[in-house]
């Protein structure tokens, strides 16, 4: 199944076919513009589900470095999940230092002020020395939080420019039938990458690299004689920057002894291939030899869906030349030990495969910074990379 030539350029003629300037990946000024015009106003996927914090007092903390804010997300006694600036309203000290946990309340380690699980100021030590504090108005500062199909997002605008539902665009319909419920996080990773966020993300936006970068981890899972270059069978590029790409699975993929074992006690990440079980909410029904889907929520996070599993990731921009790649796998909640062992196979293969994906980023970034090349040349199969550059540049230039 080789792809027809230039099919995506015909679908999206507005993206053009010419070389793409590296300027937006190497310019510090451009990065500042991205921060002001895009990041400050976007919904940030926290790569967590509300089911990750099921009980009152369950919380997690996420640093949003690009905005400089530490966010505390916590479930209150009333069952509601809220997001706050992780800060004491006394003088601004950080309240919670652990990355996740369950707590009865938050006590500041500077002067002992205490906040309850709804973020309200519950107790001020030596209160009579103050001049009539309005404690009811001194709760932890709130941050807009919303959830989409159970995934948690925050927005730092005083009034978000668009709702989360609007930002999700066509995913509202396209992913509607996908069953996220019952999936549990079985692995989470963070990688420091010394490269621009777009350069980093580009390595994850096409199938062209698979035969080369993943020759060891996936020698035959996504490529085969019928599709040696991992041609992407289906792509949908949305006006707002969101993207959906079907990644093919190879029908002649051979199971290793260990993958056979993993299948015996569960399933693996290759099970979408030739699977007769329908996976609604994916490209499976429309793509011959479907593997899984990449769903990019503009600008830099994704909800990628396979046959009964998903993984969420984000290319968190830290600075013009620094990115944190965060990745979390959600599989059916394991009940039996054998299921955990079975899932460990897919998790480790995919974890190691993602390290291969990250191998080219830093040297590529260095070469672009050195000005060794001024343009990149993109094939029809790399149209999602082209679309990202165009969407970002248009937003920064205000068009």
């Amino acid at each position, binding site marked *: 199944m080789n792809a027809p030539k230039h099919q995506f350029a015909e679908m999206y003629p507005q993206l053009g076919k010419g070389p793409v300037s590296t300027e937006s990946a190497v310019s510090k000024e451009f990065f500042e513009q991205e921060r002001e015009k895009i990041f400050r106003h976007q919904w940030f996927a926290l790569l967590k589900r509300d089911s990750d914090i099921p009980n009152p007092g369950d919380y997690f903390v996420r640093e949003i470095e690009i905005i400089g804010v530490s966010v505390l997300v916590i479930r209150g006694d009333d069952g509601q999940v809220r997001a706050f600036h992780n800060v004491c309203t006394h003088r601004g000290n950080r309240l919670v230092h652990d990355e996740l946990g369950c707590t009865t309340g938050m006590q500041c380690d500077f002067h002992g002020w205490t906040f309850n699980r709804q973020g309200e100021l519950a107790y001020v030590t030596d209160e009579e020395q103050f001049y009539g504090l309005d404690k009811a108005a001194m709760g932890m500062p709130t941050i807009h939080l919303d959830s989409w199909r159970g995934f948690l997002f925050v927005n730092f605008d005083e009034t978000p420019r668009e709702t989360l539902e609007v930002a999700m665009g066509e995913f509202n319909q396209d992913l509607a039938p996908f069953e996220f419920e019952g999936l*549990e996080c079985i692995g989470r990773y963070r*990688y420091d990458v010394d490269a621009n966020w777009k350069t980093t993300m580009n390595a994850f936006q096409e199938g062209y690299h698979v035969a080369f970068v993943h020759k060891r*981890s996936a020698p035959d899972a996504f490529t085969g004689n019928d599709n040696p270059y991992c041609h992407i069978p289906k792509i949908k590029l949305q006006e707002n920057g969101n993207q959906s790409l079907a990644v093919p699975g190879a029908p002649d993929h051979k199971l290793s*002894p260990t993958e056979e074992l993993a299948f*015996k006690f569960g399933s693996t990440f290759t099970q979408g291939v030739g699977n007769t079980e329908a996976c609604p909410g994916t490209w499976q029904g429309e793509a011959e030899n479907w593997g899984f889907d990449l769903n990019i929520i503009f600008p830099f996070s994704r909800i990628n869906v396979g046959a009964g599993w998903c993984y969420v990731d984000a290319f968190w921009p830290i600075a013009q030349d620094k990115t944190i790649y965060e990745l979390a796998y959600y599989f059916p909640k394991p009940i*039996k*030990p054998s299921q955990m062992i079975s899932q460990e196979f897919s998790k480790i293969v995919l974890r*190691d495969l993602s*390290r291969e994906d990250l191998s080219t980023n830093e040297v590529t970034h260095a070469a672009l910074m050195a000005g060794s090349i001024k343009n990149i040349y993109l094939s029809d199969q790399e149209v999602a990379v082209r679309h990202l550059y165009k969407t970002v540049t248009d937003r920064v230039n205000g068009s």
Partner: protein
Amino acid sequence: MSNQLPEAFADLEHFVSWGEPTEKLRMARRIGSTMAELTDYYSTMLPRMEAIAVYLDQWDLTDLPDSVKPLLYMGLMYMEAAVCVELFKDPDVPEASPAEKLNVMSEHAERALLA
């Protein structure tokens, strides 16, 4: 030293130290091992993996006795060794972002077992 594994798996006793309780430790153990060691572990464990899974499935993860957890951890460690032998032909991932730039976080099932 007394046996740490159930009677039926006494033959694997010399591998019990491979059963590190977290993914972070298991990955470090793998990268710090030689291919000879990993291949030995893989070849010994592969024919026993099915029996290990069946034995452990007497329990749900939520009520797994502490006494059999080392066996589960050895089963999880098998997967680290397996990708070295079957895919990478190396203890680490060649041509990849270095392991020290990767932070392996701890998630639900692992935390629950340690609690």
